[in-house]
Structures are given as structure tokens and as C-alpha cells.
């Protein structure tokens, strides 16, 4: 990964990466672990921030943006969680271990992790929103001593729909980050954690967050934001410290193709991480 793309002769420069591992996370979402083929490029694998994304390219199919799910603190490989929803992911899901894709990036602002040092952090994700936030979680586990209280609230429809379920259950057991998991309903009858929408988890952290010195990081389906933000505002969170990461159609990743424009900003350059003030001033953000 080459984070300062302006230094490249061709900022569209991409690099071949090999799928070194993959597994199904749910019936339609798959985990991919990749490594760059060129050892010189592989050396820079960790040159990104949590919350940034990469453009994948499959010749003959096209390009598509995906959130990075690994952490730069473990720079040996890149990880992604990818849902099969369109023509690009159809082609990607046909790829097996040892197959290759082109990757360029990282793109987007990502989360400013240094700025959050010494603060409380509340991470709230729903569904596919766990993918970009997993990067933050792993980062925080690796640099836990730099941060104050860290809470992770994650929701999914059912236990079978929870992405990275094993990872998060292990995270719950490790107790480096206080992890609370919930499902909307539990048809399996084997779920030992909370049942209810993600906002029902807030009572577990209520009164335990230093609101004046705390950040909230949210990612999930559009409908989730409204309810989660309401909870956070009731907890007196500062609006500038409520951070959310968003999705848009993108073709270039560098502010040229126009597709991700929202008012005067480009999601690929000025986002995908926005704060609550951005949400309030730009009516079409979510």
C-alpha cells in the first residue's frame, strides 16, 4: 500500500496480491487474506489507517472499493470481509487460494487513531459495518495501553449472520476490549449473549463512559445510525466525536470520477469517515 498517492507517477498504480486464505463468514460474506506478490510492495503492506479502503481490480470485470478489515499494526497481510452482492463480487467469489487480484490504495481519510489516544472509545457496528471497525478493534487491542476505556457493541440479525463471530467471541473472552454482542433474534437457541437490537447494549455501558473525553465510531446499515446517534447524544457525546464511516459508488478513489460527491465533499477523499456535524449540515449524507 502506498498512502501518499500524489507521489506516484500514476496514482492508479495497482499491485498484484495473492489470496493466501479465505473462508465463509456467513452464507453470503467471505473473509479474504491477501499478500502482495512483489516483495518491495509487500514491505509497505501496513501503510494505511484503520477505516481506509482499497480498490480491487479483476481484469475483465472491473474495479470496486472494499474496506480494509486488518490492522496496520499487523503488516504481514491484508484482510477483507466481502459480501457477494454484484457482478464484481460474483467474480471475486470464484477465486480460490493462490489466485490473484490487483489492489491499489489505501484511499479515504480513515480514523485518526492518534487523536483518540488517552480517550474513551465506544465502537458500535451492525451487520457489514463490523468489517471496517474490525480494523480499529485489532489496532486498539495491539495498542491498548494508549487508550482509556474501550467498549465494543456489535449487532447482527441472527448468530449465523454475525460477521467475524469467532473473532469477536474470542475478543470477548480476551477482555482487552470490553465486548458486547447481540442478535436481533436467535433461532439457533444456542446464543449465550444479548438478544435485541444493538441499541439495547447501551445500558451495559451507560454511566461508564467519560463523555467529555470519548469518541464513538459507528458503522452499519443506514437505519442503524439514527438510533445509535440518539443514544450517544443522550449520553452527552460531543457531536464532533461521533464518527461514522459511509459507503458510496466510486470509480477512482481520488476525487476525480465524481460519483461519490455529496454536496461539496467527495466520500473518497473527505470521507468515508464523517462526524455528526457533517451529518447535520449535509442532508443526504446517510
Amino acid at each position, binding site marked *: 500500500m502506498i498512502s501518499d*498517492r*500524489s507521489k506516484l*507517477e*500514476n*496514482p*492508479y498504480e*495497482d499491485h498484484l496480491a495473492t489470496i493466501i486464505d479465505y473462508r465463509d463468514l456467513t452464507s453470503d460474506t467471505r473473509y479474504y487474506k491477501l499478500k502482495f506478490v512483489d516483495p518491495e510492495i509487500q514491505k509497505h503492506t501496513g501503510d494505511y489507517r484503520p477505516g481506509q479502503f482499497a480498490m480491487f481490480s479483476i*481484469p*475483465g*470485470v*472491473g*474495479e*470496486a472499493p472494499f474496506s480494509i478489515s486488518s490492522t496496520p499494526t499487523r503488516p504481514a497481510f491484508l484482510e477483507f470481509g466481502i*459480501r457477494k*452482492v*454484484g457482478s*464484481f*463480487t460474483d467474480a471475486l467469489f470464484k477465486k480460490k487460494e493462490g489466485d490473484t487480484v*490487483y489492489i491499489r490504495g489505501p484511499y479515504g481519510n480513515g480514523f485518526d487513531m492518534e487523536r483518540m489516544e488517552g480517550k474513551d472509545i465506544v465502537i458500535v457496528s451492525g451487520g457489514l459495518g463490523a468489517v471496517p471497525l474490525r480494523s480499529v478493534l485489532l489496532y486498539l487491542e495491539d495498542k491498548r495501553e494508549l487508550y482509556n476505556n474501550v467498549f465494543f457493541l456489535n449487532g447482527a440479525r441472527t448468530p449465523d449472520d454475525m460477521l467475524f463471530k469467532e473473532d469477536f467471541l474470542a475478543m470477548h473472552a480476551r477482555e482487552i476490549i470490553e465486548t458486547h454482542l447481540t442478535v436481533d433474534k436467535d433461532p439457533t437457541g444456542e446464543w449465550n449473549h444479548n438478544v435485541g437490537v444493538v441499541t439495547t447494549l447501551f445500558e451495559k455501558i451507560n454511566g461508564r463512559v467519560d463523555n467529555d473525553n470519548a469518541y464513538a465510531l459507528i458503522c452499519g446499515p443506514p437505519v442503524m445510525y439514527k438510533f445509535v446517534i440518539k443514544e450517544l447524544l443522550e449520553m452527552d457525546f460531543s457531536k464532533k466525536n461521533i464518527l461514522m464511516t459511509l*459507503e*458510496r*459508488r466510486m*470509480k*477512482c478513489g*481520488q*476525487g*476525480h*470520477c*465524481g*460519483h461519490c*460527491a455529496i*454536496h*461539496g465533499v467527495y466520500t473518497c477523499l473527505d470521507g468515508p469517515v464523517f462526524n455528526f456535524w457533517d451529518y447535520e449540515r449535509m*442532508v*443526504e449524507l446517510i
Partner: protein
Amino acid sequence: MKTYKLMKEDFPQFLSLLQEKGNLYGPVKSKNHYSFEKIDDLSKLTFNYTRTLMGLKKFVTPPRYKVKHFDKSGSEDIIPENETNIVIGAHPCDIHAMKILDKLFLGQIKDPYYKKRRENLVIVGHSCMPDENCLCTSTGTDMVSDGFDLFLTELQDFYLVWVGSSKGLFIIMSSEDLFSEKIDMCDIAEYTTWQENRQNSFKTTIPFHLMPDIIHLIYEKDELWNQFGEKCLSCGTCSLVCPTCNCFNVEDKILINADEVVRERMLDSCTLPYYSVVAGDHDFRPDRTKRLKLYYTHKLKEYIGKWGQPACVGCGRCVTYCPVGINVKTVSNAFYEAIQCVREVKKI
């Protein structure tokens, strides 16, 4: 800025000189419109025209072009070769549009495909007279002082040739006998008279300077936007002809041998239905009103925040070519009329 005088009888020689320097393009009439075309026969050139169908963007972001080639051995970027393309006849609005595109594509992150095409391009501007669709006095783009290599102001018996770059000066230097630096007081008077006459020929003004604020304040008043949303055909013509619309799509094409792939970029438009659709078919702008809102806020308002000026150069192409009359003039006027309030507003 160096300025020379070129006598009209020497103009054909000047054109031949340009042809020696590179591929010459210029305005040509074809059926019911004008367009910048490659000039092999100088008699086809015409300078008595108002606007071409597409501006200069076709030279730097062509409607469709290859960016990458893949085969079994790997991939290769398709950056154009070094060549000199000289376009003569660009009007001030066209040159302003190019300056706006330069800001976008040659900013901090430089687009290599645009950059090479831009470096290959020599712009020889030409003076113009407005028609009723020209809005450039409202957008402040009726005059141009940079962004060109040479600019010709056509007067009675001669051209004033303004030199805008060292490339332009190089062209002059290579045929010095055609150009004279002796510009006398009567020449200057002829120029200023022409300039005044041109300024007085503009028939249309729009309250352009108010648009950023008005659009901001009426943004959520959907009834104002719906009058246009209901009429819009989502055909994308406005974006195609707009000299600053630069949105592009990217598509892969598998060649017939099935071993090779070319990646192509093509002009896109935010008024087209799929523009904001993400994987899983979620559409952030499912109706025409929402898409037009993006077009016009981006064009008349948001670009100001990003680059300090609107992205409209008043060329009048949308006014001329939108089949249902949605353009910067009708939109700006409708919004301006909507705020004409019966309450007396005191000037503070």
C-alpha cells in the same frame, strides 16, 4: 503579456505554420452544429461561430478512451504518446472551462491520462461575439488572461495576438516575419471599440452571483426542484455538452481473443439513473429531482467551496442543447423568481 499584430492577409500562412507544428484542430460546421475537428483542408475552418457542441474537454477527457491493457503477461497503462495537438478557435469560456478541469485533474493527485493529453495540447483562442444563450458576463468568464498559448482577437484588417505561454511565444518566434510588435494608437482604439461593442452585445444575464446562497437556502424546498425533476429525461445531454462536466465511468472490455482486456473510461453524467447506485442495488439518488439537485448544486454552488469559483462558464451549451429546457439559465431564473417576495425588503 506580449502582444503582436498579425495582418489578415497573413492568416492563411499562420494556419499553415500551425499545421507544420502539429495536428491542427479547429471549428468546423457539421449539419446543425459546430465542432472542433482535425483540419486537413483549411477552407473548412470557420471562426464565425458561437459554440461548438463539445468544448475543449474532448481533447483532454475524450468521451471514451483506453486507460489500461491486460494480458497474460501482466498489465500496462495506456498513456498517450507525445504529440502536439493544436486547437485553434477556442473561445474565452472554453479556456476558462479548461482551467477548471486543470484544477481538478492536475491538483494534488494528478491524473496521468489527463496530464499527458493536456501537455500535448496547444490552445490558440479566438475572439467571439455572443448570442442570446451566452451567459459569460454573468459568470465572469467573458474575458480570459491566461490558460491559452496564443489568443487572437479578430479586428477589421488584423488580429491582435496575445501570447499566453512560452509554447505560444515559440510559435511566434519561429515565423517572426508574420508578426509585428508595432501596435499604434489607432490599432488600440480599434480594439477597445470592438471590446465595447462586444460588451454591449450581451443580451442575457442571470443572477449568478446569488446562486450559491439561494441554492443553499432552498435546498430542501423540493417543490422548486420538482418542476425540473418532473421534466428531466435523464438523457445526460447537459453533462455531455458541458465543458466542465468531467465525471467518468470505468468499464472493462474483454477482447474477442478472450486473452486480453482493455479498461476504458467514458464520460458519465450524474443525471443518469445508475449514477449513485452501490452494490446490492441501494440507490442514493433514486429519482430525477435528487440527481438534478446534485448537478446544479455541484455546478452553481459547491464548486465554489472547492475551487473558489462556480463550475459554470456561461457557454450556453446546456441552454442550447437540453431538449426540455433545463439549464443554468432556466434553473437560476426560476429560483431567483421564487424568492421575489411581496414583503418590502429594506436595504440595510
